[in-house]
């Protein structure tokens, strides 16, 4: 009854007046709602990005703001692509990304597969497993330095207890061949739950009737795993790999606190090199060029990967 009255009133009201009563037009409201976010991102993300692009063509040094800035053209980019240290840093990053993603995917998927058995109390233990990934990588990474201390550190003690190697010999952070693994271990400890959670969502998205059909066809468990479970969970696994890949490519905080890139430059991933160039050597122009190259690399790789992901999803 009331609705009908309102409707009649609305019909009887001339169009411009109705608009005035309703306030701002939808189009106006849409822009009013969206533009503050866009403006903020333009000011804090896009403007600095263009500034960095400009700087990357100069020899500007942030610690000498009064010096005359020279335009260098593409020479910063040329020097970076020919710089041995940069390539070593890229290689270190690639190793770090490869091993962390491999370990996290294997362990994370296995854990998800086991949790999917829905044993009693699985929800509680799942929540407990998820805790490390929510914590600050910097603050927790810093504490791992203590766990890694030779002798007094819990990690070194347990390893020497199990393996029989004298505890003073387990120098996780200062041994050239162990240091890269020390960051892989902490990253895996921290982020395996992340991969696990996404894989679990993938496994739970597989409808039960497919397994029932396979059972009717007498497909073995092994066969069911390879032709149902894995392919159907694959888009989720790839999504997890994408997110971890981007994050670990940018990795800074944990490595900076655990090893600071050392010993020497054995754990110097790209972000650490960037920080050393930009905020220790103050080669602002040069490091801006490196930052742009990194950004383009992440952006390009992510784009290729998203395309592959969509292909897998469509199957």
């Amino acid at each position, binding site marked *: 009854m009331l609705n009908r009255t309102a409707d009649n009133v609305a019909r009887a009201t001339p169009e411009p007046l109705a608009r005035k009563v309703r306030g701002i037009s939808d189009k106006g409201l849409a822009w009013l709602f*969206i533009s503050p976010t866009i403006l903020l991102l333009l000011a804090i993300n896009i403007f*600095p990005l263009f500034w960095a692009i400009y700087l990357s063509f100069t020899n500007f040094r942030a610690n000498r703001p009064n010096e005359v800035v020279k335009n260098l053209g593409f020479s910063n980019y040329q020097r970076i692509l020919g710089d041995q240290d940069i390539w070593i840093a890229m290689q270190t990053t690639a190793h770090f990304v490869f091993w962390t993603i491999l370990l996290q995917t294997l362990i994370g998927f296995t854990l998800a597969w086991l949790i999917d058995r829905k044993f009693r109390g699985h929800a509680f233990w799942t*929540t407990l497993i998820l805790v490390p990934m929510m914590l600050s990588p910097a603050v*927790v990474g810093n*504490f791992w330095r203590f766990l890694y201390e030779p002798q007094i550190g819990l990690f070194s003690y347990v390893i020497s207890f199990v393996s029989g190697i004298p505890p003073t010999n387990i120098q996780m952070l200062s041994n050239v061949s162990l240091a890269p693994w020390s960051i892989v271990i902490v990253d895996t400890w921290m982020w395996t739950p992340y991969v696990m959670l996404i894989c679990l969502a993938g496994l739970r998205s597989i409808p039960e009737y497919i397994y029932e059909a396979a059972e009717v066809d007498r497909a073995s468990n092994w066969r069911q795993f390879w032709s149902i479970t894995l392919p159907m969970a694959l888009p989720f696994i790839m999504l997890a790999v994408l997110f971890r890949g981007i994050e670990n490519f*940018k990795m800074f905080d944990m490595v900076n*606190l655990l090893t600071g890139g050392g010993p020497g430059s054995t754990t110097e991933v790209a972000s650490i090199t960037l920080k050393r160039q*930009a905020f220790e050597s103050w080669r602002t122009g040069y490091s801006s060029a490196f930052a742009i190259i990194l950004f383009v690399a992440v952006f390009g790789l992510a784009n290729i990967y998203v395309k592959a992901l969509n292909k897998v999803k469509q199957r």
Partner: protein
Amino acid sequence: MSLTTAHSVVAPSANSKRIAGAIIIAYALISIVPLLWIFATSFKTPPDSIAYPPKIVFQPSIEGYCNLFTTRTRQTPEYINSLGPATGICDETSRKRNMVIAGPSNFLPRFVNSLIIAFGSTFCAVFLGTLSAYGFSRFKVPLADDLLFFILSTRFMPPIAVAIPIYLMYRELGLSDTALGMILLYTAVNVSLAVWLLKGFIDEIPREYEEAAMIDGYTRLQAFWRTVLPQATTGIAATAIFCLIFAWNEYAFAALLTSGTAQTAPPFIPTIIGEGGQDWPAVAAGTTIFLVPILVFTILLRKQLLRGITFGAVRK
């Protein structure tokens, strides 16, 4: 007639459940050890914390917490004996080590900075994010997909790469080492997450509610305020917690752009040192205080966790 009864043919057997449970529980317990060790270390005395073999059973002490909140100076025993009776438990523990409390440490101000910056930026990000998400969800925005992708892409940039021009820009604007500068920066980083998550939540609210409200004479703005916002409360709360956790945990920007008055806890905690190296009980105490809020939030969030960490790409 089928021979199988109530339960499904594909349900895992009791035995496989038991093995799966045992492995998961073992993993959970091992992965939680480092966190328990942080907690335990925070209640150790400095000598106990660096004992070999590592002490599992120890006499609990609050020296770590005392050292976290105070700065101390070494004094001669004669001088300490000449002082009056100890004024508190922290005073007493430090006197036992021939130290006298000189004043409060920087931990409390750094912790307060973390609170101000995390809550300030979360409020701004969720406010802007809710408006934009509603805009993208309900209106035909030209180039909507491109704009959404643009908003997300700002997350691909390595923080150090962003920090270089931000450092210069803030120096020009006088925003270096200010809470306002950090709030602006974290808002910009978090708004992408907020828009993507909230768009998912608002998409799930049927349009019919607003349409009904508008037929009843509400304007679009009133309909948004009175029908959409109350429906989106869970989503907004979950998004806010994710933003809060990010801003709380963030290290790279904080380490490069703040050094004094606006420094947050993450870059401060690793710098806590005692005599002859890192004061691990104090570091552990600071870490414990810093981590507890996140533990609480993780438990509150567990149902929305998946959505949050995948920018809303995966929903249960």
